[in-house]
């Protein structure tokens, strides 16, 4: 089984406005966890950016950091714009309004390659009604 973690690239991984912690982060301690986090050499936390509030965080959960660092999970990153497109696509097609966080995972479907026999499980972790203000701005 492949595990795929989708991170928030924000406006692009190297744009200075990103939250792609597995790429931009190094080992450190934040909010009581030893994990990967975005920081300076002096250990000061770097301000992250993502259009989704839940991903706009300088670290990731320690379990995710471990799965990615150990190679068990693959990490890919999706920009603000790509996640918005995916969210609006699902809303229009299925009437399901995903949270912006989950929309990053949805968008990953477009960039990944699959075999016709592959079984896919996608975690649509949250509801998009909390993100309507953002969606309406981008309609």
């Amino acid at each position, binding site marked *: 089984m492949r595990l795929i973690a989708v991170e928030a690239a924000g406006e692009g991984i190297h744009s200075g406005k990103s939250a792609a912690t597995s790429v931009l982060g190094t080992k*450190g301690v934040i909010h009581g966890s030893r994990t990967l986090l975005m920081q300076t050499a002096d250990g000061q936390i770097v301000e992250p950016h993502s259009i989704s509030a839940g991903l706009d965080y300088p670290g990731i959960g320690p379990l995710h950091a471990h799965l990615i660092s150990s190679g068990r999970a693959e990490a890919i990153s999706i920009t603000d714009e790509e996640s918005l497109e995916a969210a609006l696509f699902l809303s229009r097609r299925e009437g399901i309004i995903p949270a912006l966080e989950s929309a990053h995972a949805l968008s990953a479907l477009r960039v990944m390659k699959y075999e016709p026999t592959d079984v896919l499980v996608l975690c649509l972790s949250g509801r998009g009604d909390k993100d309507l203000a953002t969606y309406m701005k981008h309609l």
Partner: protein
Amino acid sequence: MNRIEQLFQRKDKNVLNIYFTAGYPGLNDTEDIILSLEKAGVDLVEVGMPYSDPLADGPTIQESGTAALENGMTLQLLFEQLAAVRKKTEMPLIMMGYFNQVMQYGEKAFFEKVAEVGVDGLILPDLPLFEYENHYKDLVESLGLAVSFLITPQTEPERIRKIDDLTHGFIYMVSSSSITGAKSEITDTQIAYFNRINDMHLKHKRLIGFGISNQQTFETACQYANGAIIGSAYIKALKNNPNVAECTAEFVKMVKG
């Protein structure tokens, strides 16, 4: 025995520990602040290593940390400043900060540098006891450093005993379940907590911090512990009057009455 332990041997009442954020108000005020605090009769100085995510701190200390970082404060510069100050004073000095700063400097290198520049103790509120005991205690003790752990009204008695065993110097009693910052008074609930801890007859001296800001709260804290720690109120005073010598003399006089 280091300077903090010596202090508590000769003084066990009304011990005044003042916290300041290194690099605030000015990048190079560290020496002036420590020497002014000594002149004003402070017993112990806690030097804050400014941090971007100061979990235990309220808005006053947060703002001073942000300003200090903008001023250009780094751990390396702070160590240089403290090494220079140590040549001029025997004041017990404690560095306070967060564990990520230690980790990025390199834990071993950090503890060794702290001892080398003549700092006596450490307060790292987010360093878990387990990690300390299993990874750092032997090194820290061999360097003669005194680490103070925090207890709060929610700390279980078993953990308080453990902290009493691991502490060198003093135990930091957080006065209430909140962040740092001046409060107007000490409540009955807090006093019940102070009494409960007194009744445990711990081996170590205790200083009460968080919410201590003036003569009244300092005196109350001193009734229930060996002294108190003041941070935010002093930083506010420095903000209002960046003339370090003058501000410090007035502030300490106000607290001690």
